[in-house]
């Protein structure tokens, strides 16, 4: 197949119809880009929304991860290294839940004072 147009200039000029052809293709490109960008932005918005929701429900008493549990166990459990990691984490979960409930009660008391 040979290129119909001899050079770039004639390709853009398109025998006088260049404006029409290129503006039509430009609109086409715009719509194609919109159809790609719009779903991606939608996805970012929804995913970040759900992540925030999950994180806020998680912070009320779930496991935090291995590093934090280790550092906390050093302070609270001392020399109980024989215990399995799962036990340790379970204890921490309960400890954290109790901590949280204390915090919530304190917050409630504070709010009560303000009112």
């Amino acid at each position, binding site marked *: 197949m040979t290129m119909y147009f001899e050079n770039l200039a004639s390709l853009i000029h398109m*025998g006088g119809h260049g404006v*029409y052809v290129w503006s*039509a293709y430009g609109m086409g490109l715009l719509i194609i880009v919109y159809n790609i960008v719009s*779903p991606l932005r939608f*996805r970012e918005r929804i995913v970040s929304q759900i992540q925030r929701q999950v994180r806020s429900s998680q912070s009320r008493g779930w496991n935090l991860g291995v590093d934090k549990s280790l550092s906390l166990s050093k302070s609270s459990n001392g020399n109980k290294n024989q215990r399995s990691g799962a036990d340790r984490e379970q204890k921490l979960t309960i400890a954290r839940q109790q901590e949280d409930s204390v915090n919530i009660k304190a917050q409630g008391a504070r709010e009560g004072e303000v009112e």
Partner: protein
Amino acid sequence: MNWTFFHKLGSPKWFYEISGKWLPWLAIVAALLMATGLIWGLVFAPPDYLQGNSYRIIFIHVPTAFLASAIYVMMAFAGIVTLVWKMKLADMALKCCAPIGASFCLLALITGAIWGKPTWGTWWVWDARLTSMLILLFLYMGVIALRGAMRNTNTSAKACAILTLVGVINIPIIKFSVQWWNTLHQGATLKLTEKPSMAPEMLWPLLISIAAFYLFFTVVLILRLRTEILDRERRTKWVHKTVLARQEN
């Protein structure tokens, strides 16, 4: 016949996982086809005897016009599935198809108008095809507006399904009456697209472009649909897992 496939299709989770695997491949093929079709049409195909180089707009106008109508019919099918089988995924598909179809309809109208200027001398012409496409755009805008006006997901699902069905029943009536109205007021005019008499050097890039746009529509629909699934199923565990997995990436 084994209906398991159909009922599996109703599971948003299954669709999410399957589409995730297929999406990259579909996207690659769509991009390749699109590039091939459009570049072939723009650069390699010979110019038209009557219209010169402006006919090259056909490679965008015809696929988007086809797709605008086809997407509306797909929405009607999705509406039937929503009303009869109450499949959530069908309603999500209906919701996601609408903006894509409307954008293609708009593109078909704009490219049609731009094509009209060098061919007929005016920016807009009330010929049967363009007028029907304009009315189709009104139908799309109606569905999108109705979806936006209703808060409740269940209600908006069924209402939009009914509206789409009423619209699709109306489309043949509109096409017929507009066609008749047009021939009444104009003499025989050059039709915008005369596909059967196209030379193979022009027909092939057109067919490739049509296939490319269909595939592009599928890819974009899957993109939107996946997010819509996450949105509606946000209380389920699998969505939480998926979203968190993404966070760690």
